[in-house]
């Protein structure tokens, strides 16, 4: 028997993370603030994807390379993670992502008819983006606003129950910018920045983790001993 060839280590080594080149200085500064909140940098991967979408409106390949460098993984791992999640768009989307929920509570409230109207009104099917890049229409799963059915979100901001008529007014308002203060462009998720760093000494958390690891090792040793 020959030793199994190590696969992951050389592949990892082949990717040398570089300083961010695509994300702006402000976004990178905020990214470092977020990374500092977690015991392991990779935990900031998804929050950083949201930040990248704030800059570009979607998650570009260039941003994924920067994020990989920032959290210490490969760009492939960033893409592999991001592609799992509905809110992370690895293809361009419109300035306004309009999500119409058609799940059970909204279905009972006429969501299928609303989605059909939205498709005709915007001239794109669910999943499509208007040719001017202003709107992407999505058929959404439950958005947890079921007492205002059928529920619609624009860029993850609730706009209340919609009828076909009110939907067209909503679209007109979005086009004219009348709701810009309330509904930022797609990608901007959290406009409130954390005002404090961590206050507990990181060494205290490290001590807790070490104590937990030692306790686990002791339990496992005791379990092994008991089985022998």
């Amino acid at each position, binding site marked *: 028997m020959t030793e199994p060839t190590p696969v992951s280590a050389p592949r990892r080594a082949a990717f040398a993370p570089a300083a961010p080149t695509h994300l702006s200085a402000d976004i990178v500064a905020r990214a470092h603030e977020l990374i500092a*909140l*977690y*015991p*392991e940098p*990779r*935990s*900031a*991967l*998804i*929050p950083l*994807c*949201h930040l990248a979408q704030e800059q570009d409106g979607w998650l570009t390949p260039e941003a994924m390379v920067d994020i990989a460098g920032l*959290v210490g*993984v490969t760009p492939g791992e960033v893409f*592999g*993670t991001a592609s*799992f*999640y*509905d*809110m*992370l768009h690895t293809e361009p989307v419109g300035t306004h992502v309009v999500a119409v929920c*058609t*799940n*059970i*509570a909204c*279905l*009972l*409230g006429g969501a299928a008819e609303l989605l059909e109207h939205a498709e005709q009104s915007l001239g794109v099917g669910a999943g499509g983006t208007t040719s001017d890049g202003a709107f992407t229409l999505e058929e959404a*799963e*439950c*958005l*947890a*606003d*079921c*007492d205002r*059915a059928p529920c619609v*979100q624009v*860029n*993850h*901001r609730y706009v209340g129950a919609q009828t076909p008529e009110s939907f067209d007014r909503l679209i007109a308002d979005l086009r004219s910018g009348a709701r810009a203060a309330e509904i930022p462009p797609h990608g901007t*998720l*959290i*406009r*409130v*920045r*954390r*005002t*404090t760093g961590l*206050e*507990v000494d990181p060494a*205290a*958390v490290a001590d*807790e*983790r070490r*104590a*937990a*690891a030692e*306790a*686990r090792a002791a*339990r496992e040793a005791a379990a092994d001993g008991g089985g022998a």
Partner: protein
Amino acid sequence: MAITQPPKIVTSRLGYDDSHTLERYLATGGYEGLRAALARTPEAVAAEVDAASLLGRGGAGFPAGRKWSMLRKNPVTYLVVNGDESEPATFKDHLLVERDPHQLVEGVVIAAYALQVSRVFIFLRGEFALGLERVQSALNDAYAHGAVGRDIFGSGFSVDVVVHPGAGAYICGEETALLESLEGKRGFPRIKPPFFPAAIGLYGDPTVVNNVETMSNLPWIMTNGGAAFAALGGGRSTGTRLFALAGHVANPGVFELEMVKTTFDDLINAPVLGGGIPHGRGLKAFIPGGVSAPWFGPDRIDLPLGQDEVAEAGSMLGSGSVVVMDDHTCAVRAAWRITKFFSRESCGQCTPCREGSGWLERIMERIERGQGREEDLDLLMDACDNISPGVAWPPQQTTICVLGPSIPSSISSAITMFRDEFLVHIKEGGCPYG
């Protein structure tokens, strides 16, 4: 039964427009529960929660005190709050994070003190943009107020609380998937055992995962005592609970009700609650606890809103969401949409769930469109049986997590209760409801 008037434990501030601000929170008894907790030992705080017999409000209904007590044997490293509310027709945590974020923060710090952890992550679903902003604002204010951070209220206890946004995946409500996501990975549920993150959780360290509503109950319990909480409700279902009522009712919304004392009939029909079914229509069926739960017909409407009572009747109270379908609802279409949801949200790790959900969805779709065959009903049940052998309740499991065995609920309910309706679709080549 009667609708009781219990104290408002988690919804007391919702009458105020500024319920989310620190000013309103402090003016209405805010952070008094935390001060009471910090004056006692962590063990005494945990014992108070034990005395309340608070069942977790996330869906599984596991006693919060027992979850914590598993940790007393091991040093706990992290508390993680599950705010990934995505079970269809569930919208109670949405209300709590947007309208009373300080109550959540206070509950979290109380729990952190009882568990003696110094790092908390509040995982909120990414679609809660306003909720994320409100909780972050509340945290910023709470740090400045001395209620979070170093040496809280001069007690010597310190904890950091971090808000973490999800990115849109139902499966992240499953606690091990949530932890994977919090580690910056795909939301793949972890293989069990270990069954509880208390043994191996975030980064492999001992972790407690609790729901937003569970945490929001803690300030009241610390101020009023666990015994006062346990005096409400009945049996194992103590206290009040938020019920999210949606679908065909005149007045959908979130209602805080005393558990067991109130019935589904009260919730759906009482003028001060659901207000009945509009347009003079009758009740066809209702889903008692999220779309993973088997449906009930009108004959079950007198059941009390209690965890064990609903379980004994063959379904679950689950996430506390009740969906009402009137007698003009197409059962095939309703079950098809729920199946489509599971098919979209299956994480793809386990074959029965990944493949089965897609097959079921396509068969349901063709029946609804009038292209079904009579043998499709047996085919549906056979596919359900491959995901959850016996298609019974509580379900058998062939998959890593409970998403898989949740899929058959709506299909088997619809076929059992409304078989004729399926046959009309098949024989007449279309949906009788248009």
